[in-house]
């Protein structure tokens, strides 16, 4: 919409016809005047000034507009000098001169008047900056600019587009431009031929255009549009189903990640570890700590956090095992009590040592945003990574439990400790290793969760109950069960949510668990036969 | 008047109130009757078209190799395992396949498990008390009082099983053999019509074996007894009729002598020298 308004402006022609911005530079006094007007006018007037600045052709204009859009263009109260803020955290800000680019060092916030921007203006600014992208040498930029044109083409632009299509090398940009043009044609001219182009398009503007066409008086147009619409609807249903499934799997993988460590400590070892959530929390805080240690490199920090989070949580696990759990051999229920205490302590520890407030964990670029499968379906990247991560962690654990002696020994130790020791198994070592493993995996979950949710002292509590549900639902002691349970519960939840809302969906999932356990009193993958009755 | 009297008569029990508890019908001879029973676990046939009849008052020994399905058979009779096909009747009135474990137990089928299972957190005395044949519904149990009659009965059994001194000990600390005895004692307290005894003398000395043998033979006649045992000496000392199970079905049946000379039985079970 922002673009529509802009396209009628003479500026557009300038951008679309010139190969690039001119290298001109206006007089400093002129610039100072422009900026002063910008600073002193009302929001409505500012729009005009912005266009003037853009139209001035000054090579610094882009920088001014960019920093203005992000609220970093300001003026020093005392001297009236215009500045660009480089760093705006804390009470003293680093700034440079807007006109000369000279670094002015740190200046107290009190002395700086930032030039206010709002959403409407920011829209305007972004449009100006982005239309330039239609001519950008970078194909991705052109593609997104072309996509943005859909639904915002007007008469003047419609005439230009065929030209643009011709000179365009990339097929996808061409397609986007063609569609944009077709939307215009259907909407404004009722062009039956253009309807065919839109058939099967998942773009919402295209759908709006078709819907409008269906309401027209032209029977041929209505018929064509109805047909096109039907094919779209069909595709959309499929996409929506795929999206729900994706949501379900991604929620499921979060559940699996949170629960899988517990599937070891609780499912296999039998320790009712109420501090599991806090171990997850430790993993998340490790990520935060790493990012503090490596400022400016959130991605690297995140990668390093994977081993670090595992280690921190595993060490904490060892500490818990050594100080508390080892004294509770043969009294697994009491572990509930003791670890409940541990969890209280850990929570409060984080509150006192770090802060009761949430910590910011930055999402690295390669994990933010989404991959677009088509215009109706895009998969959020952070969740995609989490799904992958959950599967990798699961596979790793499975390998350890199946292919190493540890897996065998820990099961032997939990089933009959004295006998296992009589077979020469070092039960203490096995305990420590297994608990460390389970805790470490909880730490990994924390690293992943830091990309999805709050990193704060309450993090653990919000996952502990779900984790137990998942482990039990899957059948205690069965890793596959945990995986399937997490995924099932996640998917059911997401299937229900659009129907009944988040709260009821959650309630229904819980009721489902209750009823399911009635049917299968030992979870999804029960231990059957005599062995289970032991 | 008489109608009212009949309705308010405290001794009267209405017909519809007396289903499962009705007495076992043994007019036709057999007290237990298994026909065409099959059980498989994950594709493994543990019981294979098993047919077996136990007469009222009979003492029957069942032998057979490890894994022949003896314990599984008892599981079926007591309702722990449901067979895939076949029918199991108690007397000629009760179809055991339709009843739950407590129902079967209250009909009068008592069982001693292969691995002795007693209530470890209760004393020997209490173990016997719980086993005692009384009304086992909730409220009667809640209000039950230990009468001298009951106490005498428990003492009597304690005497038989030789745990008199340990009556107040927790069952959990008993040695293996003592637990075996306690379980036999619980069986006696239950006064069942049919006793299923799985390996009663494992872990007992020769003399204790003799005592057990005496005990079981003395029960036969009044009650029906089915004994599973691997100790041939013991079996020989009590056996009248012996059934040999193998791979889930009856391999041979007859007197001890007949059976122990059966070449097939010698091959799969007894070995050359027995």
């Amino acid at each position, binding site marked *: 919409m922002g673009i529509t308004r802009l396209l009628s402006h003479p500026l557009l022609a300038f951008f679309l016809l010139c190969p690039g911005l001119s290298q001109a530079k206006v007089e400093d006094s002129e610039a100072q005047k422009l900026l002063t007007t910008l600073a002193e006018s009302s929001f409505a007037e500012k729009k005009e000034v912005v266009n003037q600045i853009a139209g001035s052709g000054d090579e610094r204009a882009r920088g001014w507009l960019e920093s203005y859009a992000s609220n970093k263009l300001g003026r020093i109260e005392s001297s009236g000098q215009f500045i660009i803020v480089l760093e705006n955290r804390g009470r003293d800000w680093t700034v440079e001169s807007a006109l000369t680019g000279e670094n002015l060092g740190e200046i107290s916030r009190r002395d700086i008047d930032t030039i206010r921007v709002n959403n409407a203006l920011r829209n305007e600014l972004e449009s100006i900056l982005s239309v330039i992208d239609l001519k950008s040498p970078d194909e991705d930029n052109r593609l997104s600019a072309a996509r943005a044109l859909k639904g915002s083409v007007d008469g003047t632009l419609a005439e230009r587009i065929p030209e643009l299509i011709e000179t365009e090398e990339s097929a996808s940009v061409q397609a986007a431009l063609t569609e944009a043009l077709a939307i215009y044609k259907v909407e404004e001219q009722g062009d039956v031929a253009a309807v065919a182009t839109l058939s099967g398009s998942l773009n919402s503007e295209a759908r709006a255009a078709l819907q409008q066409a269906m309401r027209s008086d032209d029977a041929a147009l209505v018929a064509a549009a109805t047909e096109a619409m039907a094919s779209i609807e069909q595709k959309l249903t499929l996409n929506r189903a795929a999206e729900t499934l994706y949501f379900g799997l991604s929620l499921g993988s979060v559940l699996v990640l949170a629960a899988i460590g517990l599937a070891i400590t609780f499912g296999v070892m039998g320790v009712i570890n109420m501090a599991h959530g806090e171990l997850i929390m430790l993993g998340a805080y490790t990520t935060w700590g790493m990012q503090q240690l490596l400022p400016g490199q959130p991605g690297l920090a995140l990668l390093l956090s994977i081993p670090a989070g595992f280690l921190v949580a595993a060490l904490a696990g060892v500490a818990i095992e050594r100080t508390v759990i080892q004294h509770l051999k043969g009294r697994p229920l009491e572990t509930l009590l003791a670890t409940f205490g541990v969890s209280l302590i850990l929570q409060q520890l984080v509150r006192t040592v770090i802060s009761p407030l*949430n910590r910011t964990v930055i*999402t690295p670029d390669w994990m933010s945003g989404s991959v677009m499968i088509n215009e109706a379906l895009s998969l959020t990247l952070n969740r995609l990574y989490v799904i992958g991560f959950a599967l990798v962690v699961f596979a790793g654990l499975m390998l350890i439990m199946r292919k190493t002696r540890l897996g065998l020994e820990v099961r032997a130790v939990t089933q009959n400790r004295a006998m296992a020791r009589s077979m020469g198994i070092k039960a203490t070592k096995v305990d420590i290793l297994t608990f460390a493993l389970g805790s470490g995996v909880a730490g990994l979950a924390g690293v992943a969760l830091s990309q999805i*949710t709050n990193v704060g002292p309450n993090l653990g509590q919000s996952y502990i109950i779900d984790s137990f549900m998942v482990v039990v639902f899957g059948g205690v002691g069965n890793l596959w069960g945990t995986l399937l349970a997490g995924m099932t519960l996640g998917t059911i939840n997401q299937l229900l949510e659009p129907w009944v809302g988040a709260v009821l969906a959650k309630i229904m999932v819980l009721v489902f668990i209750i009823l399911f356990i009635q049917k299968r009193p030992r979870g999804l993958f029960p231990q059957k036969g005599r062995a289970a009755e032991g | 008047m008489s109608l009212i009297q009949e309705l308010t008569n405290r001794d009267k029990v209405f017909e519809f109130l007396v289903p499962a508890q009705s007495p076992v019908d043994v007019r036709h001879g057999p007290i237990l009757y298994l026909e065409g029973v099959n059980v498989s676990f994950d594709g493994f046939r543990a019981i294979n078209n098993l047919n077996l009849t136990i007469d009222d008052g009979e003492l029957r020994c069942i032998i057979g190799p490890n894994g022949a399905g003896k314990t599984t058979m008892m599981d079926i009779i007591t309702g722990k395992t449901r067979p895939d096909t076949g029918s199991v009747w108690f007397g000629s009135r009760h179809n055991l396949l339709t009843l739950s474990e407590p129902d079967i137990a209250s009909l009068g089928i008592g069982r001693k498990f292969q691995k002795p299972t007693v209530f470890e957190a209760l004393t020997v005395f209490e173990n016997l008390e719980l086993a005692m044949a009384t009304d086992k519904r909730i409220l009667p149990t809640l209000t039950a009082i230990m009468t001298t009659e009951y106490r005498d009965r428990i003492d009597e059994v304690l005497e038989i099983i030789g745990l008199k001194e340990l009556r107040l000990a927790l069952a959990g600390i008993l040695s293996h053999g003592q637990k075996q005895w306690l379980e036999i004692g619980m069986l006696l307290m239950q006064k069942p019509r049919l006793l299923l005894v799985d390996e009663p003398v494992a872990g007992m000395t020769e003399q204790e074996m003799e005592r057990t043998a005496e005990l079981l033979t003395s029960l036969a006649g009044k009650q029906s007894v089915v004994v599973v045992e691997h100790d041939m000496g013991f079996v020989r000392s009590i056996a009248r009729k012996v059934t040999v199970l193998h791979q889930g079905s009856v391999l041979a049946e007859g007197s001890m002598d007949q059976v122990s000379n059966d070449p097939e039985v010698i091959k799969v079970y007894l070995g050359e020298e027995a």
Partner: protein
Amino acid sequence: AEDPIKVGILHSLSGTMAISESTLKDTMLMLIEKQNKAGGVLGRQLEPVVVDPASNWPLFAEKARELLAKEKVDVIFGNWTSVSRKSVLPVIEELNGLLFYPVQYEGEESSENVFYTGAAPNQQAIPAVDYLMNDIGVERWVLAGTDYVYPRTTNKILETYLKDKGVAAGDIMINYTPFGHSNWQAIVSDIKAFGSAGKKTAVVSTINGDANVPFYRELGNQGIDAADIPVVAFSVGEQELSGIDTAPLVGHLAAWNYFMSVESDANYDFIDAWVAYSGNEEAVTNDPMEAHYIGFNMYIEAVKKAGTTDVDAVKDAIIGVAVPNLTGGYATMMPNHHITKPVLIGEIQDNGQFSVVWETPSTVAGDAWSDFLPGSKDLISDWRKPLFCGNFNVVSGTCGGKAKAAAE
């Protein structure tokens, strides 16, 4: 010297609410320390009494009772959630205490013993919606909130308000989520779909606490930016933002009565003091802190005016007391125990701060009873004699339950 004036501080320091409330405890301690340095009041020092109600509502009542009955405090500053306030309310009234409540809330309450220094719905929600409607041109509305009373009431009020303004029912989507909701995928996707109908759409968020981080994350990841569908939040302040990577959120909005970025000297001084007190360069301030600042100063003024800490005298004296707020104006205690506040709309910046894009021309007086709810539009509250009533029905001319209770 005389006995100190005891100031009870009733904020959760553990449990789920510690995240929000613990800073308010520190704010109070800072204000008290400052006042003591300036010589206290009436020549008496102030003594803080801190307890931890641990985010547990019955415990709030118990602790309030402890403060009033056992510690004999003169005034209490505390609470965050509505339920905790509801829980302590009977206790405060029974033992005739004073409570300063610093958080924006759903209104529909006016107690003789409570002073509401946070915003009532008419001091936050309504102006924000006006802004969106008039300045941004929003035509389609998503009212998303956590499922509890504040969002419910606010949304109810907004719904009526929007419909009064001619918004069709089909253009309003209401959605509630449980506390701490962390899986926003489907909802955000719904919002996206709702917003792609060609009309300018905005989200009015009363989402509370921890649920916000995953919500904004999901918004960012699903590519909803403020230019397309702005979100205006009533519960997200600087403190909440300090736990979020704000880069993807730039331009989303919040409506408050104070922002840390407000350019006024009082504010700069307050920030300096807070940074010095907490020893943390990065420490942020927020709206409830300002509310406590105002409430505390009002209390001090009232005590000076009354010349005593006697509860009834302070109650009388405080009405009409005006103290400077941090945005460069004055806050006045109204007869309904609410205060006057300016309403500011801010846009989120990449530094975790808000930049003010709009503000009411003058301050707005808090309304205890909403004009947009059928049950309460006839009620007013006035704690001055002779009316002295928290829920006076102007139609029937009676004072709610109070009059009847007295009549019995």
